[in-house]
């Protein structure tokens, strides 16, 4: 019975496949065919064969004493022979070690050196802001409390240059003194990469002026320089200081105020030997 069903389903599957295929029917017919065979086998095994329960001794645990002694004997005999050639043995270990060391280098070549890539983004002084649609952002374009994603003019879609641009009431801002001139007309711009695990921060809660990461709910206060106020993130979002150029476009004053994204061991040190100041 089960087997006959499997035959029908198998043939059906072949026909469906030949006629062009359809995911749900394929899955269902395949299932009927396979479960038919399986169910048939299990029924056969359980119902149609005499139940044959047997009991046998186990042989777990160590081998017989004589075997063990024989193995231990030949091992220690071998050890004694080897021990007569101590220097040779040491040289062999040395050679294997040196080869192992050398073999590490191909592994090293698998990963490019981090260098200063983690400290830099494409943002440079005087660079204009491009939004998601590719347009350059002018100073009078955004309404108050609106939020948009911007990229460096030269690197649209950039993963580490992505930033959020928010226009707030300039009088509400409580930025640190050295950044006060970086928010013309109430435009504040922060890295969009969360300082916790690097997700793009996509939620802006306009009522409380908070940015929230959709992945782990880290929340940053936009008015006070994106200090973390809730969730697992510990460091503020680096800010992109802005100014307005002669043609009324918003431009960056330079790179972000610090390395963007999730934390790492040398984040406060600056890239070694690259001459870049710790940001």
């Amino acid at each position, binding site marked *: 019975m089960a087997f006959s069903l499997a035959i029908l389903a198998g043939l059906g599957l072949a026909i469906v496949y030949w006629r062009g295929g359809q995911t749900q029917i394929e899955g269902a017919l395949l299932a009927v065919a396979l479960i038919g065979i399986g169910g048939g086998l299990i029924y056969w095994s359980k119902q149609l064969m005499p139940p044959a329960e047997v009991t*046998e001794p186990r042989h777990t645990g160590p081998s017989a004493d004589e075997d063990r002694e024989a193995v231990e004997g030949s091992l220690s005999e071998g050890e004694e022979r080897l021990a007569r050639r101590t220097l040779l043995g040491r040289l062999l270990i040395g050679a294997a070690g040196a080869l192992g060391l050398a073999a590490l280098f191909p592994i090293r070549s698998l990963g490019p050196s981090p260098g200063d890539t983690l400290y830099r983004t494409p943002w440079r002084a005087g660079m204009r802001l491009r939004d998601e649609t590719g347009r350059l952002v002018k100073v009078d374009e955004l309404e108050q409390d609106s939020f948009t994603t911007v990229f460096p003019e030269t690197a649209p*879609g950039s993963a580490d240059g992505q930033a959020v641009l928010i226009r707030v009431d300039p009088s509400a801002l409580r930025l640190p003194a050295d950044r006060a001139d970086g928010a013309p007309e109430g435009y504040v711009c922060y890295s969009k990469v969360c300082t*916790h695990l690097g997700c793009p921060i996509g939620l802006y809660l306009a009522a409380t002026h908070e940015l929230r990461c959709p992945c782990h709910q880290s929340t940053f206060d936009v008015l006070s320089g994106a200090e973390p106020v809730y969730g697992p993130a510990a460091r503020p979002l680096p800010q992109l200081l802005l100014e307005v150029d002669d043609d009324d476009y918003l431009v960056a004053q330079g790179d972000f105020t610090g390395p963007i994204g999730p934390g790492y061991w040398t984040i406060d040190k600056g890239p070694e030997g690259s001459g870049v100041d710790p940001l």
Partner: protein
Amino acid sequence: MKLVRKGVEEIDDRVGGASFLKRSLGKVFPDHWAFMLGEVALYSFVLLVLTGVFLTFFYEPSTREVTYDGPYPPLQGEQMSAAYESVMRISYEVRAGLVMRQIHHWSALVFVAAILVHMLRVFFTGAFRKPRDINWTVGFTLLLLGMGAGFTGYSLPDDLLSGTGIRIGYSALLSIPVIGEWAAFLFFGGEYPAPAFLRRFYALHIMIIPGLLIGAMTVHLMLVWRQKHTEFDGPGRSEHTVTGTRLWPNYGMKALGLMFVVFGTLSLLGGLFQVNPIWLYGPFVPYSASSPAQPDWYMGWIEGLVRLAPNWTEFSVFGYLVAEPFIPAVVLPGIFITIVALWPVLERRFTGDHEMHNLLQRPRDAPIRTALGVAGVTIMAVLTLAGSNDVLAKFLQIEVDTLNEVFKWLLLLAPPAAGYLTYRICRELRDRDEHPIRRPRRVRVRWNAEGGFDDVEDDAPPGAGSPGTRPEERV
């Protein structure tokens, strides 16, 4: 069946081995429904390999930008990676492609689930005790490899959801002190999102991890074969014998049948239940994240740790930064993994039990272990729920922040409570009830007329004894 016999004869003429076959065909397998869980994992893996090979014919591990012009209208004209496009092609243009892809994904989910449930069975019945402690560690390695295979496979379609998962993996690796930056660059081939990562993940997913899985599985099964199955206690059972049905034909036929049923069930899931619909998530773009973003279920507990951890777990030492994700995403899972891997050793240390065990325990026979196990499972359950707090918040109409506070308290209170309750229940059951098969002989002593004592067999029904004493103590 004559054909089988003939074939065996032909082979034996050339390579011999009849004595090996004699022992193998006659091998005795104890029977209990719970023993099939490991088999389910094995058969899921077989199906994973079969469907996986099919998928490699069509998948392209490349982040090269292409424009979509396939039959799925909403994405026509969109820029995407060749990897994403090839998975779209598998889903919409390759005949039986989608069903294969979905069976593959479902098999992966069931594979890890079956290993986990199998491990819980082994844990709660004490099957990991000497001489099977080695195999506990091999089996746990299989679970970790399975999770690794799952994570790398989940990342291959290069859709928006997987992009979020990879980014989190990258950032967690980056947070490791001293070597983090170098390790992250090595593993992902550069700063996230480096174009090289797909090729690396592909190599890991189709060669390196499956190779290790097959190797470890072989060791696992050879050890089971050599050491034979454990079995539950019962009439005629002892530590020195094994009771069950022979491989040929009863057990073998049933196992083969189970394999087909597993294949069939997974085909049904793959055909009828949509999984990972990447066309809904869209191709990966670095400045978007999909919300709600959930990892596959077996990663949920790490996600929960990451979501609940307070931000004071980030601190500086001598001007170097120990980033926030390090403790929740690396240290705590590491500790948990180490405890589980070394459980047989730890238990031996605390109980001083160095005996060989072939008979299983019922969970109530080891109340402390059972209680600790339940507490551990509770921790995992709370963390997994916390890992989807955004979905739960939406479903329950509660603020996510409130929910997080609830989860923090639950994490603190629920595991000890569940553990204590389990301990009480185990003690209660053990004290009250007798072994269903081998009832302890209970003896009552009566003062006889001569002033001496007589033993009187007592056939009181189970549970009639004085509460609070164990059956053995009454004898």
